């Protein structure tokens, strides 16, 4: 056996290579820390920087909101403690933030409306619930009528009429959102179908409306609904001051909804339309039974994010003098008898948590639905 030698080079090695060191840990908490927090010098610096930031912000926020907060007492107790939130203030103003100036002895009507609405929404959104189509019918048709009768009042059945100028707080915010949701979805579907229609005039009308509304700020739509709607209609039709922003809100979100629905319609394979047409069913049954159920489920995330946008946009109705939740927080915050440096942060913290819980809940629901549907679509 001789070495495989060419010239002076040896191509066959005689000795074993020295053993490599064992591989670094790839599992366990220590390896995780090394990979995810200290993978390089830059990464380590960032880790320390953000850790310091988190250790500064989170404890001071918890301190402010809970540990050092004033839970009960009056304005003087709050003024004496500048390090913590003044929850006593929220407690004092809670009913005002809930109902606005709705008469105290009639507030049960608001509670009933809200509870019925919550039950219907839960029924509608809960997957395994029986007869969800009944829930849809109740929510989209019966509930608005019931809510109108209960909130506004009907002297016929012994409920005194409450003027809408007394409504306020969370009631207005929820009402605006629900009205917007109930009307914007069907309107948006109609506009989207119109935009994809073969009929040139229908298409032009829908495109004009959608592009016009999407091109202007919501505030100008509200201004228009508030100042110009009464000019447009005959005197006997002049809408109520609360109805005007509602119309504006519904039309505004309908235009955005239309674009979301259109995306769903465009994503449908042509075969679905052709299959339905081959079966000889008409336009509306085809849309109702074949196209829309599929198109709408594919765009559930878009629909929900339009709802979230609508919910956040209800804060703008304050510009036309409607006392929505944020507006009541502003009014309460400026109450001179509670004046103090911690009042504004407390009010904003409370309002932010309220909006955040609703919006985050909605976005989580849409993510879950999306995941469930995508699981169903996989083969």
């Amino acid at each position, binding site marked *: 056996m001789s070495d495989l030698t060419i010239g002076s080079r040896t191509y066959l090695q005689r000795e074993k290579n020295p053993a490599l060191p064992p591989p670094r840990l790839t599992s366990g908490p220590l390896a995780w820390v090394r990979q*995810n927090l200290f993978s390089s010098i830059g990464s380590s610096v960032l*880790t320390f920087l953000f850790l310091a930031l988190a250790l500064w912000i989170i404890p001071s926020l918890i301190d402010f909101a809970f540990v050092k907060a004033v839970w009960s007492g009056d304005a003087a107790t709050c003024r004496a403690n500048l390090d913590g939130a003044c929850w006593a203030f929220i407690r004092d103003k809670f009913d005002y933030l809930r109902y606005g100036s709705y008469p105290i002895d009639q507030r049960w009507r608001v509670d009933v409306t809200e509870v019925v609405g919550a039950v219907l929404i839960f029924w509608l959104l809960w997957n395994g619930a029986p007869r969800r189509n009944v829930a849809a019918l109740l929510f989209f048709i019966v509930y608005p009528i019931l809510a109108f009768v209960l909130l506004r009042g009907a002297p016929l059945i012994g409920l005194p009429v409450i003027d809408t100028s007394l409504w306020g707080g969370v009631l207005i915010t929820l009402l605006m959102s629900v009205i917007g949701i109930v009307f914007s979805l069907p309107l948006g579907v109609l506009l989207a179908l119109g935009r994809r229609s073969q009929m040139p*005039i229908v298409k032009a*009308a829908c495109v004009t409306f959608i592009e016009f509304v999407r091109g202007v700020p919501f505030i*100008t739509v509200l201004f228009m609904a508030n100042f*110009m709607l009464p*000019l447009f*209609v005959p005197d006997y039709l002049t809408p109520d001051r609360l109805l005007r922003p509602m119309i504006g809100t519904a039309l505004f979100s309908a235009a955005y909804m239309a674009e979301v629905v259109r995306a769903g319609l465009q994503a449908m394979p042509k075969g679905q339309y052709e299959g339905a047409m081959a079966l000889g069913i008409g336009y509306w049954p085809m849309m109702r039974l074949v196209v829309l159920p599929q198109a709408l489920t594919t765009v559930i995330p878009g629909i929900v994010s339009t709802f979230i946008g609508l919910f956040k946009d209800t804060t703008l109705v304050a510009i036309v003098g409607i006392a929505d939740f944020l507006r009541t927080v502003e009014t309460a915050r400026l109450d001179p008898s509670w004046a103090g440096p911690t009042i504004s942060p407390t009010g904003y913290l409370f309002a*932010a948590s309220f*909006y955040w819980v609703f919006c985050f809940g909605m976005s989580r629901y849409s993510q879950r639905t999306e995941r469930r549907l995508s699981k169903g679509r996989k083969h």
Partner: protein
Amino acid sequence: MANTSTLVKPDRGSILNDPKARSLFYQVVLAAVVIAVFYGAYSNTSRHMADAHIPTGFSFWNAVAGFDINQTLIPYTQLSTYGRAFWVGLVNTLLVAVLGIVLTTIIGFTVGVARLSPNWIVAKVAMVYVEVIRNIPLLLQLLFWYNAVLKPLPAPKQSIQIPGGIFLNNRGIIVPDPQFGAGSGWVGLALLFGIVASFGFYGWASVRQKKTGQQAPVLLVAAALIIGLPLLVFFLLGSPITFEAPVLKGFNFRGGRQIFPELAALLLGLSVYTASFIAEIVRAGIQSVGRGQSEAAHALGLNARQTLRLVVIPQAMRVIIPPLTSQYLNLTKNSSLAVFIGYPDLVAVFAGTVLNQTGAAVQVMAITMAVYLVISLVTSFAMNLFNKRNALVER
């Protein structure tokens, strides 16, 4: 041909079932309804306006406004016309939109990239930012910045001083005021030339790359042209631009440039809020580029930076830019929330004060909406052109 004439025309059935007739009928009905609604609105409006003595023309445009605006970028006094007030408002809107777009792009891209960081804590902090900010109404954030952060700042005498001659107090942010001496025009000219020359160089470099495959150091040359050249001219001419530092005199500051708290709050609120959406767009865009793309680039021998710059980013941008533009438009439209904190933008000045003083609701609202519509339509038109040029051509 002769045979066909003898054929009996097939029975099409009732005209009610003819799709063409139906479609024509529906459209005529729709057109009639639309015209009736518009005519009704028009006649009602003109009657209402006559009854209430609301001006119907645009003669108010040249009347004296008689109110003050605290921030004006173009000359304006109480004696200026309503038309002038309109331009002041429009310029203020555009100012906040442009500054906001720059700021939100920086924050948004940083947070979006941070969400994809391999560093766990960086990714989590970015996620918390996005989830918290985008689920809270913009108006609430604006009010928070204005009423809870900027307004409680100390009075001018106890200003918070930031290195660099910047002062923070309840009247705003006071920064050194640049003074343009003789010769500063040349510096501006050099800057302009640098920008134009950089574009030219970029064009030349991409043509050369397509032809020969050789790359030119575009970024380096552009930096030299845009930053280096004006700096060189600046020092050659003996520093014609100086900064006048603000000085506390009595109860207020002399000199320096004051950024009003309204503008600062609006800018902060708008860019922080919009950035949370842009971050998600950026993340989705980067994730949309398939793994195979970067693996193929590595296999070709490109290093990590080249892969990112030449393969991933160009493809991600194609996905990012259309929704990014609509976020820019959203920011511009949302700048109308200025009216809630008293920043004199188009809506606050024109659709607010001017409308209330003149009562010309229809004309004022029409003009205001037309301005936003023009901005939106021009942007989406440009966007469509861009999309056509950059759309992915398959096969």
